[in-house]
């Protein structure tokens, strides 16, 4: 095992972390701003993968347009779902939100099975990334670098959006004090719809971006949502950088854990989450909950 091999593992882990970040950051923002625990988040990730397949008819040439279409479709679907199903349950206890979104998960999984069948749907590497790159003599797909770049760009843009734009300030304010925001005349329902739509679009984009590496199946939604929850809980609910850190930790623990204890790969993420929760329940980069009076 030479250095090139370890570098390859590192890049593989980071590429996986990138799609995980796209998935998890929306979940984190939706929880942070709206207080909604979206158990169906992974289903939109799955939907993104299938939509890319449908829009491009499985042809690598259509990749770029397909990606744009998936993001746009995610936006529309997210807005519709928020209006129809999420809005009536804002004031209900958390359990009912989890259950409603779990119902959406069940429905979407079967809808995809109905529309696309239960078989795997795979997608070739887009032509732009057809030739591999070399790291100390070890070849690896150049697509990995694209994924890392995509996630880094999204993280940076999101951060700029939250820090520098008025809408971003409102989103952050919504995580702290909704009533005050409403009193200031902000259209909070519209803000919620936008946050949800944006989060869903990112999840769909993440699922689509994963498709060239990993075939889509209806069952991937459940795995994805559990992974996303782990990432978000490790990083801290509502924190963009927390989602990034959580995703990178998860990517690395998967990539290197498999070398140390191959039969225990399923356990690592949960062990990591349990450890973080016990030591820092609010997550590595989250804020401790304020004492309510």
């Amino acid at each position, binding site marked *: 095992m030479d250095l090139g091999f370890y570098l390859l593992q590192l890049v593989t882990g980071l590429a996986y972390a990138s799609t995980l970040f796209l998935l998890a950051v929306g979940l984190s923002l939706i929880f942070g701003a709206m207080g909604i625990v979206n158990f169906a988040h992974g289903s939109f990730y799955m939907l993104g993968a299938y939509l890319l397949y449908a829009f491009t008819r499985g042809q690598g040439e259509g990749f770029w347009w397909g990606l744009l279409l998936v993001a746009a479709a995610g936006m529309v679907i997210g807005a519709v779902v928020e209006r129809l*199903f999420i809005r009536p*349950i804002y004031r209900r206890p958390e359990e009912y939100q989890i259950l*409603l979104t779990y119902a959406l998960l*069940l429905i979407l999984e*079967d809808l995809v099975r109905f529309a696309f069948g239960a078989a795997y749907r795979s997608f070739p590497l887009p032509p732009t990334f057809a030739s591999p790159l070399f790291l100390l003599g070890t070849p690896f797909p150049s697509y990995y670098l694209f994924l890392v770049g995509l996630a880094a760009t999204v993280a940076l843009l999101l951060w700029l959006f939250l820090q520098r734009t008025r809408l971003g300030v409102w989103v952050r304010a919504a995580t702290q004090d909704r009533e005050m925001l409403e009193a200031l005349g902000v259209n909070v329902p519209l803000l919620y719809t936008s946050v949800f739509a944006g989060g869903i679009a990112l999840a769909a984009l993440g699922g689509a971006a994963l498709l060239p590496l990993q075939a889509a199946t209806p069952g991937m939604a459940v795995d994805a949502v*559990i992974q996303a929850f782990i990432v978000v809980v490790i990083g801290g609910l509502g924190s963009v950088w927390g989602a990034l850190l959580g995703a990178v930790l998860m990517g690395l623990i998967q990539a290197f854990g498999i070398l140390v204890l191959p039969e225990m790969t399923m356990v690592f993420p*949960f062990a990591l989450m349990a450890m973080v*929760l*016990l030591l820092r*329940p609010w997550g590595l980069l989250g804020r401790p909950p304020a004492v309510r009076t």
Partner: protein
Amino acid sequence: MRLLLLFAFLAALGPALSEYGLKLLSEALILGLYAMAFNLQFHQAGLLSFGQAAFFGVGAYTMALLVSRAGWPFLPTLPVALLASGLAAAAIGFLSLRLTRIYFTMLTLAFAQLLYAVVHKWYAFTGGDNGITDLRPQGAFGESLPFYYLSLAAFALGVSFLALLQRSPFGYALRGLRDNRARAEAVGIGGFSHLLLAFVLSGLLSGLAGALQGALQRSVFPEYLFWTRSAEAILATILGGSGVFLGPAVGAAAFLFLRVWVQAQTEYWPFFLGVILLLTVLFFPSGLAGVGERVARRLWRVRRGAPQG
């Protein structure tokens, strides 16, 4: 009194049922016990655990390992299964209950998935994903009718225990903690210890349900500990109505019969389950039993000529 009537009715029903009906009703009772156990935490203590399947699975595997590896007869494995799942619940509860709300939920999910992964991979001990099969209980309980009575007895004991618990000072303490933990602790109720005891009791009864389910199916698989099993308890509870005492059991029966019926028509059972759950959450948050209770109350009032409210 009403409970006794219900148990007597179910007991009298036994001989009238077909082989298939007995199996189905046994499973409904087992699932009902499991959901009722879950609701002890959920409704009374206000804890949403997403790891209930861990205790269901520990119970099932304890029974299966004792029967298949140690050659025990079936019946004495039940108290051991109860004890093992209670111990597992004590350990997991001790760690999880330091957190609250969504963090508690995620931590219980994490521990259950950890156990699932271990059971799934430990081929030498648990048989891994091949599970443990050929668990036909020796003697009478291998037959459907005695097994039905065994399930009924477990259900009746569990439910009576929960009914007593609900009316005991312990039950009131739990509801006090659920509604306002700070205030309850201020009057001297130990929050952590009460919640832990509720968690253990709930886990222990879930383990009993798991052991019975394994015997009914004559096999156990890692899926017994998978998180969708935890979701089943939650689904049954919400479908039936968590606020009514027997709601979860009603929900479990409805859930099971619905599944059997829908699966006979179409392979898209999760879709229908999703739609039903969606409608329940949006329009009938008090569940089937809640709606039933409301209807009954209204009828009762109409009959007595009281004004409708």
